């Protein structure tokens, strides 16, 4: 075993259960998270194979993707969604899996509740039938999304057969300029390396700027790793991590805590560890970003314009034209001249307390533009409660934002929160694919501050010139 290993390699090596000849290594999974959309067929598979869940305690479920964000207790009008939710309830009961259900104070988006309950810890392997599982890598865990067949596999064996990915280090030098957030860094990276720039790789984010991020910021950054094609994204654990994890419901306590801490301190990549690829980013060059197309790599600074197609490769040009056609935009248009009629602040990318604080700071003392409908959807019940204790909800309500119950909501519009055809939305979520937020809907990805500012201005505006009240 080489002494100079990366964070990823240390976690990988520690979890290899068996290395069968000629096939993928078998990795042990410390924590498996489940939700209602990608699990029913996996439980069916278990039943038809006569199999049990091997380690129920290492599996945990919640409902997030298709639940309404109306006040809890409002009946679910979508009968197929209701069926999916009751299937999860029945499956969890049958197989002995803990479920944070609709009415539970711990309910929330699966990638929000894992960290806030202290389930997510450094050095762990974590999987979930959801591509944004990469979020948990912010803690120095190896966390990645899997498909439903793999969900079944993990339920049955608590292991996964995986080919070892390659490693990529993204070194973010310098400090963030004013108004630039982790979301802008994520968009800036994808804009630079492309939506397949990290395919087959696990990214480790490093450098002064990354170290300066809060845990919320690191989660936002790791969350979007998948949008660059990466298998996972990680940040080495440090004092910021330990301070966040300490004292949460599922974290180790007392002597166990000291033991865990000592182990976690050994995890960061060795100084001289080698990565298959290294990308350097200068934080000082970043600005608040806005996506203008139909994938997260189609991004421009808020002060910029939609690019001109001159000099593009033929295949790229076609994609470019289709994207602008779908978005109803033209080359050369100034980003700040793009008007919006919907705003969505939420999703596993940006629905944590710090995101809501940032958006509320912008909204305070202002009014949402009359042509805009703006929603704030906290990532979890715990986030919602914390925000209400701080009075953030009142700031939003006074400014004319809607304040909803927690869930994925308009990030993917599997519940009633959707865009209508042609509606244009400033969204803090992670995907601007065609129809993602509703058929014919047009999504622009931005940071929470930029979304709140767009709600008030009625168009994209540079947060660096904002009049905070």
């Amino acid at each position, binding site marked *: 075993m080489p002494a100079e290993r990366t964070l990823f390699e240390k976690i990988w090596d520690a979890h290899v*259960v*068996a290395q*069968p000849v*000629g*096939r*993928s290594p*078998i990795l*042990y999974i410390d924590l498996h998270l489940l939700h209602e*959309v*990608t699990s*029913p*067929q996996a439980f*069916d598979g278990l039943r038809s*194979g006569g*199999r049990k869940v*091997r*380690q*129920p*305690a*290492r599996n945990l479920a919640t409902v997030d993707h*298709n639940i309404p964000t109306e006040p809890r207790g409002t009946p679910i009008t979508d009968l*197929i969604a209701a069926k*999916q939710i009751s299937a999860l309830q029945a499956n*969890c*009961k049958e197989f*002995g899996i803990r479920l944070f259900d609709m009415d539970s104070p711990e309910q929330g988006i699966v990638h929000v509740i894992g960290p806030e309950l*202290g*389930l997510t810890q450094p050095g762990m392997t974590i999987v979930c*039938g959801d*591509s944004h599982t990469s979020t948990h890598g912010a803690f120095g865990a190896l966390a990645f*999304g*899997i*498909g*439903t*067949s793999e969900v*079944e*596999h993990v339920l*049955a*064996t608590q292991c996964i*057969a995986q*080919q070892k990915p390659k490693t990529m280090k993204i070194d973010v030098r310098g400090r963030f300029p004013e108004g630039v957030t982790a979301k802008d860094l994520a968009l800036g990276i994808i804009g630079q390396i492309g*939506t*397949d720039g990290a*395919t*087959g790789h696990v990214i480790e984010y490093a450098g002064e700027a990354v170290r300066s991020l809060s845990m919320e910021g690191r989660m936002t950054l790791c969350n979007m790793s998948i949008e660059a*094609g990466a*298998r996972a994204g990680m940040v080495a654990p440090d004092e910021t991590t330990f301070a966040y994890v300490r004292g949460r419901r*599922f974290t*180790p306590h007392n002597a166990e805590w000291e033991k865990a801490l000592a182990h976690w301190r050994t995890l960061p990549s060795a100084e001289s560890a080698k990565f298959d690829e290294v990308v350097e980013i200068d934080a000082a060059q970043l600005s608040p970003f806005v996506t203008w197309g139909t994938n997260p790599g189609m991004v421009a600074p808020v002060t910029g314009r939609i690019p001109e197609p001159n000099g593009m490769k033929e*295949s790229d040009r*076609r*994609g470019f034209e289709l994207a602008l056609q779908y978005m109803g935009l033209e080359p050369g248009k100034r980003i700040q001249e793009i008007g919006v009629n919907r705003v969505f602040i939420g999703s596993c990318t940006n629905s944590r307390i710090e995101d809501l604080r940032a958006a509320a700071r912008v909204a305070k003392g202002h009014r949402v533009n009359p042509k805009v409908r703006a929603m704030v959807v906290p990532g979890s019940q715990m986030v919602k409660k914390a925000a209400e204790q701080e009075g953030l909800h009142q700031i939003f309500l006074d400014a004319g934002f809607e304040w909803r119950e927690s869930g994925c909501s308009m990030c*993917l*519009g*599997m519940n009633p929160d959707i865009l209508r*055809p042609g509606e244009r939305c400033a969204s803090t979520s992670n*995907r601007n694919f*065609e*129809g993602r937020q509703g058929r*014919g809907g047009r999504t622009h990805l931005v940071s929470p501050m930029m979304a709140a500012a767009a709600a008030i201005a009625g168009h994209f505006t540079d947060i660096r010139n904002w009049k905070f009240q």
Partner: protein
Amino acid sequence: MKPFTVHRGRVAPLDRVNIDTDQIIPKQFLKRIEKSGFGQFLFYDWRFGADGKKNVDFVLDQPRYAGATILLSGKNFGCGSSREHAVWALADFGFRAVISSSFADIFANNSAKNGFLTVRLSDNEIAELMKRATEPGYELAIDLEQCRVRDDQGFGAKFPIDEFVRHCLINGLDDIGLTLQYESEISDYEARHPVPAALDFVNP
């Protein structure tokens, strides 16, 4: 799982890059709790207008590509959401394989678990096939034993594939069964790494 050895079939060219799984199977169809019946919703927003009427221009619905079993597409196919429903929809529609110059990782994994083949060729080979596929009745043969794709007009290319994935596809092997051959290793590992006390939970 249905074994995959040699397959010959008609090719439908879908000349776009970065086709994400939200396009392959839009979210409104993810609420089913079965694995079957997703084919009718494949590429729904491209195949059907907002009024539910068929868009006759869409490649899969052109009569010349009827019955196609091989999908040809631009790079980074299957990016985005991890939904395995994308593979179920492609397979249920009648496809056995997708050919592209690159695939998103999770999509490729999901495909392999369903006996569905992802064939990686170079950008130039894809461009060439895009041209050839517009010929009426164009067919390709995919030979997984030889890792080769060829047509009757002289096109031939090798494709890379992980040896173990190939072995499982050819033999139609179930992953869970394979992993459980390592039951004693898993148990040993668990003995050394017990479930943390905080997680222990008894279902009421």
